[in-house]
């Protein structure tokens, strides 16, 4: 590495005075009430982690209530109705409001500094995701206090959750609330993917990227591909509950198992969405605590990817007891066991790293060791329930409760606590107390094992899960009491942790406690809200270990971008694989639009839940208005000159097309849309397989002239948009061609809409799914039209020309996507029944 160090520094000379002060001023957080508009990742990250931890504590309190109820036989503290709500809310809040958001929050907090960027590429999107989640989550939790909390279990299986068996708003709160919070998770995932792929420090190739960034990249891709399934599922169930479209009602050709397929297509990856970032954190902490690079880094990265891959093929192993074909069981049993291989690779890599180095037994290390112990036990019981004869025995007993808590507490909560202790000096003026931390660890470790280990025995002794009480004399009494005692030990540990946080945590980016562990990665460079004074060149996996003097050189501005040449917030966009600098990206400053949009989006969904439709619509309009206002400030005018960032590199301060961050975000959004649409196609075909009798024969289908006309109009609208592109490139106005495209697309959709008017969505699953496609088609066309009209408005306002064209390009690629998707829909709705009819 010493010859690498000899590379000339980009800005070797002394810097002019006042640059740091200017960076500080530009990146300062707003004061007073305007602090609510803060968007910098340091603040949003801390708020986000804090909110998620609040939900952890709240869901933990629900667990304590359940454990208190179960402490003795035939207890009457909590009745069956409340108990059902408690376990539903406990599971739901832990999974959707704590586990996923908290890792996303850690990503927001840590990634920019770890990658050497000044901030994430879309800071206002992070703020929007956070506020939408926090407001929506709080209202969702509050449903418990007014008796509206859902009671159908965290996976909401119909038919129990259909309107017939669960009338009232309760399940709607789950469906709309969770569906909405998933949208916020997707917004965060887009942010993380673009951040990891496009804002890494120069020289940080994929192979040199820190493991946590790898894990977050895999995590975000999994969210993009898997979460649309649960969004679609919640939409279907809500359509069934509100409008009686029978997707899940067997007598009308629906199938409750469709829910399980969609839910677990999301739910299985969800387990790894939670675990992989935690594993990524461990892969950061272990090398520091051992003073050694991570063993087998390349294998560990491959293990992350393999786990993600596998998780998309394995959802069925949550459905072993649903009566799936016997012949399939052996296949899935084998495939389920294969998951042990990538997990094993990681565990052995951590052990090997510890074995090679001198381990410092600080609190993060203790939590990592606790994680290894508990997680491996959870993994072992996982292999047990992957064996089908055993699974059928243990299904829906406390054995499963024990297994999933070992996996989640071991695989997620312990790494998270390790991360809290490890990264506290990064975000706070003081680290947490080592002495108190040992007590916290001891209480949590003893408590977790005392609570959940006896549950294995309980399950094998036959106690089913989700019962609000039990009779004495079944041999369950003492075990339950022990388990309840354990739960309170955990609570004591969490309480002690909170006390220590209250005493020691003082948020600060500028004079944080700093690199107390002697770590090797970039987030430990000194800095402020602007992240690093200058953006370093990275030559290895552990720059702080391998590049001596790096911290001083960075702080004195000897690397890239030591100042703010355009006078506003900026960071460097780099190429996705090799991280070569491409563009100087100018970044937004705080404003109210994201917060207003988040508040009214949340209000829209929550009011819809309680069927205040008009008020909800009004809130929705305000939200859309705020989003448009926000969008109007995007795509700032190009600067004529390239900007010098040092080392002889001059970067353009404006980009459009595939180099721009906006293009990437739109591409990823389209991928999300495609995943949603693919799930809808799966649902259509699945319902056909279940009840082909409800499908009409060819004579009862809309005449074939309808889809032909619709397809012609849609293709023509795409062509019109293409010609708008040509006009813009020539410097002419694209507005007339865009207007033509809008008219053609609306006509194309109208034709398709009209062709299905005779079908009643309430009569059969066929009708329901056909109208689902009409609904989806309409939604996508509407969004495309809004984007296109927005581009036209920009043109009229003089904000769109042949150079400044990001809004137009985004509308254009989305337009072509929507047309392609609609054509697939036409083929499916009109072509498939003709081919499939007997």
């Amino acid at each position, binding site marked *: 590495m010493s010859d690498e160090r000899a590379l000339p520094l980009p800005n070797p000379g002394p810097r002019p005075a006042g640059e740091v002060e200017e960076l500080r001023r530009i990146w300062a957080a707003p004061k007073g009430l305007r602090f609510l508009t803060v968007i910098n990742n340091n603040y949003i990250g801390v708020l986000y982690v804090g909110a998620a931890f609040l939900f952890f504590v709240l869901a933990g309190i629900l667990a304590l209530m359940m454990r208190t109820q179960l402490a003795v036989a035939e207890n009457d503290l909590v009745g069956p109705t409340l108990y059902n709500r408690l376990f539903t809310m406990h599971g739901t809040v832990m999974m959707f409001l704590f586990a996923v958001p908290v890792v996303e929050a850690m990503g927001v907090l840590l990634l920019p500094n770890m990658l050497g960027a000044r901030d994430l590429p879309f800071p206002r999107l992070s703020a929007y995701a956070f506020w939408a989640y926090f407001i929506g989550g709080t209202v969702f939790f509050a449903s418990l206090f007014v008796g509206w909390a859902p009671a159908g279990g965290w996976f909401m299986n119909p038919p129990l959750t259909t309107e017939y068996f669960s009338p009232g708003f309760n399940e709607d709160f789950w469906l709309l609330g969770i569906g909405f919070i998933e949208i916020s998770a997707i917004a965060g995932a887009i942010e993380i993917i673009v951040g990891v792929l496009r804002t890494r420090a120069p020289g940080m190739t994929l*192979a040199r990227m820190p493991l946590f960034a790898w894990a977050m990249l895999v995590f975000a891709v999994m969210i993009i591909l898997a979460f649309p399934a649960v969004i679609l599922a919640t939409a279907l169930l809500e359509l069934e509950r509100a409008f009686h479209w029978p997707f899940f009602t067997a007598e009308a050709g629906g199938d409750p198992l469709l829910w399980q397929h969609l839910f677990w297509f999301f739910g299985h990856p969800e387990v790894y969405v939670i675990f992989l970032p935690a594993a990524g954190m461990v892969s950061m902490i272990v090398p520091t605590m051992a003073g050694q690079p991570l063993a087998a880094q*390349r294998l560990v990265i491959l293990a992350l990817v*393999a786990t993600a*891959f596998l998780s998309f*093929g394995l959802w069925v192993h949550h459905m072993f007891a649903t009566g799936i074909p016997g012949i399939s069981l052996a296949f899935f049993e*084998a495939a389920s066991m294969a998951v042990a291989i990538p997990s094993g690779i990681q565990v052995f890599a951590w052990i090997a790293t510890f074995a090679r180095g001198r381990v410092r037994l600080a609190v993060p290390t203790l939590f990592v060791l606790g994680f290894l112990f508990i997680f491996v036990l959870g993994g072992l019981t996982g292999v047990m329930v992957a064996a089908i004869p055993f699974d059928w025995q243990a299904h829906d007993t406390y054995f499963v409760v024990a297994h999933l808590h070992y996996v989640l507490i071991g695989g997620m909560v312990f790494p998270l606590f390790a991360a809290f202790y490890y990264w506290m000096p990064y975000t706070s003026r003081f680290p947490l107390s080592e002495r108190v931390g040992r007590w916290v660890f001891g209480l949590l470790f003893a408590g977790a094992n005392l609570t959940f280990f006896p549950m294995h025995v309980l399950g094998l002794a036959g106690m089913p899960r989700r019962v609000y009480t039990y009779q004495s004399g079944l041999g369950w009494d003492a075990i339950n009491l022990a388990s309840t005692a354990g739960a309170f030990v955990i609570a004591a540990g969490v309480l002690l942790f909170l006390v220590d946080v209250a005493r020691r945590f003082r948020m600060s980016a500028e004079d944080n406690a700093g690199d107390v562990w002697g770590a090797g990665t970039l987030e430990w460079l000194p800095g402020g809200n602007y992240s690093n004074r200058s953006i370093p060149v990275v030559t290895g996996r552990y720059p702080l270990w391998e590049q001596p003097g790096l911290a001083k050189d960075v702080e004195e501005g000897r690397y890239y971008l030591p100042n703010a040449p355009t006078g506003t917030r900026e960071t460097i966009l780099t190429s996705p694989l090799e991280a070569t600098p491409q563009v100087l990206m100018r970044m937004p400053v705080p404003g109210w639009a994201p917060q207003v949009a988040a508040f009214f989006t949340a209000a829209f969904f929550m009011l819809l839940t309680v069927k205040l439709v008009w008020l909800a619509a009004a809130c929705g309009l305000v939200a859309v208005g705020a989003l448009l206002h926000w969008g109007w400030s995007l795509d700032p005018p190009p600067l004529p000159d390239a900007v010098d960032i040092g080392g002889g590199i001059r970067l353009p301060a404006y980009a459009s097309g595939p180099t721009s961050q906006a293009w990437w975000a739109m591409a990823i959004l389209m991928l999300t849309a495609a995943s949603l649409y693919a799930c809808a196609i799966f649902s259509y075909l*699945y319902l056909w397989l279940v009840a082909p009798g409800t499908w009409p024969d060819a004579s009862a289908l809309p005449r074939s002239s309808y889809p032909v006309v619709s397809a012609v109009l849609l293709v023509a609208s795409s062509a019109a948009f293409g010609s708008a592109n040509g006009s813009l490139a020539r410097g002419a106005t694209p507005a007339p061609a865009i207007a033509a495209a809008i008219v053609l697309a609306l006509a194309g959709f109208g034709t398709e809409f009209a062709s299905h008017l005779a079908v009643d969505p309430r009569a059969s699953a066929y009708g329901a799914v056909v109208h689902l496609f009409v609904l989806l088609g309409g939604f996508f066309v509407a969004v495309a039209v809004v984007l296109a009209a927005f581009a036209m408005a920009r043109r009229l306002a003089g904000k769109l020309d042949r150079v400044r064209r990001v809004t137009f390009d985004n509308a254009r690629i989305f337009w072509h996507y929507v047309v392609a998707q609609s054509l697939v829909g036409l083929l499916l709705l009109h072509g498939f029944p003709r081919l*499939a009819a007997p």
Partner: protein
Amino acid sequence: MRLIVLAAALSSGLAHAHAVDARPDAYAVAAWAVLAAAALGYGAAWRRGAALRARNAAAFGGGWTALALALLVTPDAPAPFALHMVQHELMMLAAPPLLILGRPFTALASLAPRPLVRGAAIPLRVPPLAAWGCHAAALWVWHVPRLFDAAAASPHLHALQHATFFASALLFWWTVFRRLRRGTAVFYILTTFMHTGALAALLTFAPAALYADTPLAEQQLGGLIMWVPAGFVMLVAGLVAFDRLLVERP
């Protein structure tokens, strides 16, 4: 062009596998002829010292064997669905990537004039998303029960089915190999893994038999073969593609 013609003829020959009568039909004869020609041609290139390594030759041999096996798998009518599935997976998942790893164009270049080799490569220059779409469309459309049954009943349609399976898979894998350095290869493999899994899930969980002369259990086994072992091959391919991204290049 020659390779494409070879490929098309070869794959159409696979229709032999389901020929309703025992008489060897023209497609099968052509297929074997093409296989023989390919082997001879590759051998000649090897002897002439084409820039091929032993592992290229081994890959080509493996791909060749996979195709030959697919030809030899001749399920008697009524064709068992699961065996049929194995044959299709050999044609789509085993043979194409191995043949490509055998560097057929390098071999061809030592036998044929340069313009001809270039011409032969033209059809492979489609955008990756289009190749991905062709492969997906071929897979999904042919599994519509009526089309699948029609192909099983007619040797000509059957040849067409196999030709589209093999050619679209060749196109797909070619694109994947070309995109190895750009990272998008992983994306195409992952999404293909997912949509083939979805199709396999539909076949596995269908409550009734979908295809003529196919008992339900047979159909489920076919679906599972498409899902788990074939998915495993995709997984390995995806990981290999991914590993290429982690190589430090100077």
